[in-house]
């Protein structure tokens, strides 16, 4: 069990953004156990990104509870405050610290330099050190499966896509989705609305409404709140959840969700520290590792569509199929990935262009 204490409150930029910081600490008496720390960017109650990371922490407690204690700090703003939080965890005897958001990259490296005896794991970053490993998921793989389902399910041939920020992770997701969508249904197109936030339920709902009003009959999101699912349910449209299973917010609407599952990875990494085999590696796991999963399919999806989705999923896992399999054309019709080739990891990690079938331009 965790004891939670309400921590200090921080005044954000312009006095507008306030962040409540709360710290959960394990039992203090366990001196001989390995102390593992987790730093989350959002509240663990977001039922999305940070929630999934915390599920991983709980899996560690469950699997190795007799050998480890865990601590988490939620709602940590990216920037200077993050460094203080990570430093505090390192200084208080944590030997393995997971920093779970991209913006924690530089603070993690700084603290890692001062604490060579502590091991760090940074999610979605690209900088490593002697004691800093990185990890992320190939979320675009799941978007390929979702794209195929959408191609079979759409009637209006317009898919509404709510984006957070135009970064390669999101853009590659849109592209993987669109390629699979148009493979099933060449007439379908994708309309993207950026809300410039990871988590703003009001704005996400407004974006979903706007896309619905423009004729979209499936709403896909790459933002973290379940608000678009609720809107889609209200409008009688299909939707696809993000980060965790969001079925209960729209049981009639929720086709499936792209689920991030860190449980296995976290348990493995803690085990590696316990047996001394830990190395500062980079892990970019796809559906084959279980890091990227799909939530249960909506029972209303016809059996042949589910069969197709399962086939695509199996092919991606076995390596028979790649999300970006040539020929892939950009919006101007130029072949970017030639026939017989697949996109390199570098191409995916730097993706800043749309494939054919996406409306509008990537904001620069």
């Amino acid at each position, binding site marked *: 069990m965790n004891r939670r204490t309400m921590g200090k409150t921080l005044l954000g930029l312009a006095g507008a953004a306030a962040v409540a910081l709360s710290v959960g600490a394990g039992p203090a008496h366990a001196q001989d156990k390995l102390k593992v720390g987790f730093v989350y960017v959002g509240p663990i109650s977001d*039922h999305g990104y940070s929630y999934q990371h915390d599920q991983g922490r709980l899996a560690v407690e469950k699997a190795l509870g007799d050998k480890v204690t865990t601590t988490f700090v939620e709602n940590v703003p990216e920037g200077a405050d993050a460094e203080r939080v990570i430093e505090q965890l390192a200084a208080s005897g944590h030997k393995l610290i997971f920093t779970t958001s991209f913006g924690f990259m530089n603070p993690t490296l700084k603290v890692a330099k001062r604490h060579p005896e502590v091991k760090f794991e940074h999610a979605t970053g690209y900088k490593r050190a002697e004691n800093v490993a990185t990890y992320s998921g190939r979320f675009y793989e799941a978007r390929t499966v979702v794209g195929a389902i959408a191609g079979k399910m759409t009637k209006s041939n317009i898919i509404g896509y709510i984006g957070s920020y135009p970064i390669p992770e999101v853009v590659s997701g849109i592209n993987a989705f669109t390629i699979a969508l148009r493979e099933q249904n060449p007439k379908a197109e994708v309309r993207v609305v950026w*809300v410039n936030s990871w988590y703003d339920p009001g704005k996400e709902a407004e974006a979903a409404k706007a896309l619905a009003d423009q004729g979209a009959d499936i709403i896909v999101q790459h933002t973290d709140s379940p608000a678009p699912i609720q809107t889609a349910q209200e409008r009688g449209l299909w939707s696809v959840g993000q980060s965790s299973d969001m079925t209960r917010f729209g049981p009639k609407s929720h086709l499936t969700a792209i689920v991030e599952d860190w449980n296995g990875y976290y348990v493995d990494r803690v085990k590696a520290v316990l047996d001394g085999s830990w190395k500062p590696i980079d892990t970019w796991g796809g559906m084959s590792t279980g890091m990227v999963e799909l939530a249960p399919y909506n029972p209303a999806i016809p059996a042949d569509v589910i069969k197709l989705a399962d086939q695509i999923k199996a092919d991606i896992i076995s390596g028979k199929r790649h999300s970006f399999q040539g020929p892939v054309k950009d919006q101007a019709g130029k072949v970017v990935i030639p026939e017989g080739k697949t996109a390199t990891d570098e191409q995916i990690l730097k993706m800043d262009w749309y494939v054919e079938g996406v409306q509008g331009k990537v904001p620069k």
Partner: protein
Amino acid sequence: MSDFAVVGSILAAMFAAATPLLFAALGELVVEKSGVLNLGVEGMMLVGAVCGFAVTVQTGSATAGFVVAALAGAATGSLFAVLTLFLLANQVATGLALTLFGVGLSALIGQGFVGIPLEGLPKLNIPGLSDLPVVGQALFGQDVMVYLAIAAVPLVHLFLYRSRAGLVLRAVGENHTAAHALGYKVLRIRFLAVMFGGAMAGLGGAFLSMDYTPMWAENMTSGRGWIALALVVFATWKPVRVMLGAWLFGGVTILQLHVQGMGIDVPSQLLSMLPYLATVLVLVMISRDVARIRLNAPACLGKLFHPDA
């Protein structure tokens, strides 16, 4: 979908998007007219949002939810009133602290309520009228809270400018020493005004958590309380202009999403900025007319008052 239908749905979405702003800004307008500057609108909205949501989940009654949201907002507001009116704390600092407090308190109360879905309010589809082209859904197909917010505009106006109580409240805001000398209870009037402001902010917050996106999420007002504060100045302390400002803000917010969806090539970051930019521009235009600001801004806004001083 035809172009007319899209215009109609933009209008419908605009009225809904403006509703939380309208509630909160009307409440703050009355507070400021009484001479008190409460910057804690965001905090009061969040407390209202979480309390309304919690009660609706527990009782199943949206009416009970909204009543409790208003009470919770008023209670949070009265905390501010006690600190600034009786203990003479600085209003700006206390207001900022109230926002931070509201963020933390609402998160604490809401811990057990995250991830619970709720049904939104039903739309009042008025037979015949709500099927009219373009304006049908926008004007006759909203839910009751949208109409309540709009109805509050003439009520606040009538209260402030056509009632004796409103006259006294404005007098307190203009010159609290004179009002005190005339025998009016300055602190009591201000206390009530702050509570009213809190109740309205609570309703605005509850509209978000119970209707607009029927769920509880930490910090779900995402800065709408601050927009409401800006709207009051934007409207030069006039209720009708608060409503127009809220519609303008809501309209630009919705419009920029449609522009993106249509694939029109404008940077989305710029579009996200647009509602705020529009607010700043109008503020600049109004501020050029010094006389208008001076005539409408309560002269004692933000000033401390002590009856024995």
